């Protein structure tokens, strides 16, 4: 068997696996009880946040703590215009609002490097939460807002659609020349600029694209919560969760963050209703252990075991 049929066979297998998973996910609400769709919605929400985070921060190494800001913008867009416009347009506007915010923030701040970028993006989340709270209390005279409720299945299908679109985008960026350029930025930004990569343009664009998906997810999730206020929408927790899930799952492969998001969300759903404090305690412990010992996440660990059991598939080059 020559190498081409071998690789095409592999991609055929993985392609059909993806297709089967996709069909199963689409038909879940038809045969599974309501809770499955709710649980899967939560998982999909974190999958979207995590994959979007990895899209920018994974290859470039810029640690963005802004997901909560983009997610919150989507939530607020949905709260303000939801009900006045058809829902798909609301979701699109939520995404676009985040996209624009990310363009602005990116153009301003992506020259900050290392830890400064992380603190800045985190400050952004808190600034938005506190300014909005002040605005709501003093100008509109309320603390929070009610959001038009959507059915569980609608929310589920929207999130499924967004995550499929996101996975496709992420996959295409990864294998394009832009993906390579992003990685070169992560390894040595000055060298990347010298080899002709338009560094600033590329960083800002990818940052904004990733924000689009977070905003769209926020616009959908707002309809699940029915009531929101600035501190629900701009909760710094949503900035840290994607980071933890990505590291826990492993960022080397596209499916790593999905596995990380699925496992940690399931743990959250399982524990948070009964033992919220214990959940946060376990969450913190997992985070510390993952950072200490799981360098390439769960996926890296699995690959290591697989190599140990079946031996190396390819020679080390």
């Amino acid at each position: 068997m020559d190498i081409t049929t071998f690789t095409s066979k592999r991609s055929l297998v993985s392609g059909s696996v993806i297709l089967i998973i996709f069909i199963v996910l689409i038909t879940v609400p038809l045969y599974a009880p309501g809770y499955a769709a709710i649980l899967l919605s939560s998982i999909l929400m974190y999958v979207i946040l995590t994959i979007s985070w990895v899209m920018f921060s994974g290859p470039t190494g810029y640690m963005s703590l802004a997901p909560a800001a983009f997610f919150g913008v989507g939530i607020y867009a949905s709260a303000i215009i939801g009900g006045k416009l058809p829902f798909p347009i609301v979701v699109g506007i939520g995404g676009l609002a985040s996209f624009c915010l990310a363009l602005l923030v990116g153009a301003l701040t992506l020259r900050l490097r290392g830890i400064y970028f992380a603190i800045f993006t985190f400050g952004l989340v808190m600034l938005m939460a506190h300014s909005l709270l002040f605005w709501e209390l003093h100008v509109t005279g309320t603390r929070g807002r009610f959001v038009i409720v959507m059915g569980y299945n609608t929310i589920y299908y929207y999130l499924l659609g967004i995550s499929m679109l996101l996975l496709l985008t992420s996959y295409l960026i990864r294998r394009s020349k832009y993906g390579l350029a992003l990685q070169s930025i992560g390894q040595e930004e000055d060298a990347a600029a010298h080899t002709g990569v338009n560094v600033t343009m590329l960083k800002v664009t990818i940052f904004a694209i990733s924000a689009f998906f977070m905003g769209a997810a926020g616009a959908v999730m707002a309809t699940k919560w029915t009531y929101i206020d600035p501190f629900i929408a701009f909760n710094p927790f949503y900035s840290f969760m994607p980071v933890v899930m990505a590291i826990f799952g492993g960022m080397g492969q596209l499916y790593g963050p999905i596995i990380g998001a699925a496992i940690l969300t399931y743990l959250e759903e399982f524990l948070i209703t009964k033992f919220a404090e214990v959940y946060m305690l376990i969450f913190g412990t997992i985070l510390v252990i993952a950072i200490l010992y799981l360098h390439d996440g769960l996926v890296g660990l699995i690959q290591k075991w697989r190599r140990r059991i079946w031996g190396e598939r390819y020679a080390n080059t």
Partner: protein
Amino acid sequence: MIVTFLDIVIAGLLMGGIYALIAVGLSLQYGVARVLNIAHGEFIMLGAFGTWMLYKMVGINPLITLAMCGPVLFLIGFFLHKTLFRSLLASSASADIFEGRSLLASFGLLFIIQNIAILTWGADIKSYSYLNYGVNLAGALFAANRLVTLLFAVVISAAFYLFLAFTRLGKAIRAAAQDPRTAGLMGVNINKVLALCFGFGALMAGFAGGLLSMRYPITATMGMEYTIIAIIVVVLGGLGSIVGSFIGGFLLGIIGSIVTYIEPGLALVAYYVIFILLLLARPTGILGK
């Protein structure tokens, strides 16, 4: 007009003393040990709860508790660095990677410490009353506990500054802050110095927590607010500059006091606006290199 202005400035200085103390601790942890410790506020919370518990249950004077809680937190910080952050440092390829990973690890610590505190002491607000009477200062009335906390904050910070400036260990710490590799070659036991610095940071947080508990009600979730203030002050003063953090603390205290006088709801917003403008215009801070 002038009297109101003086009132505002003095109130700002009273708050600024605590901010300075908190920020000096964080500055030490970041400037020398290169750990941007998101869990800094949790050490403050531990100091505050330790003081509260000893005062309520055994009746020990909070000012004496400072000398008990501080060293305990120092040991916790010291051994945390010896175990967790040192193995992170050993397995990180570069200083930048270490900074990112240690930030996330300290975020994990935040959750661990905070939730252990909630499980132990509950999530409700606690307070006690100590030195709670007015003192007339140049025509304006201030609570005695605020003056005492300012005094202690300044004395502790100044003592620490003198320690850094004039002792052998202080010199080793300053050398390690400038260039850990060269300091190591010059015979500084670098791992010990880094762990000591992390411990000193926790010690400062413990002192600040004890002092804060005399003035304000405390909760198990109070840490995050002070962490954010500490980060802002440290950036304001210049990452890693002890004197900058000290000045920055008082500066932020006064700014906060002025904004609170104009519009109380905007104090935190003002902090973030300053913070973001500062990062854009001068990320190295007022005294940074």
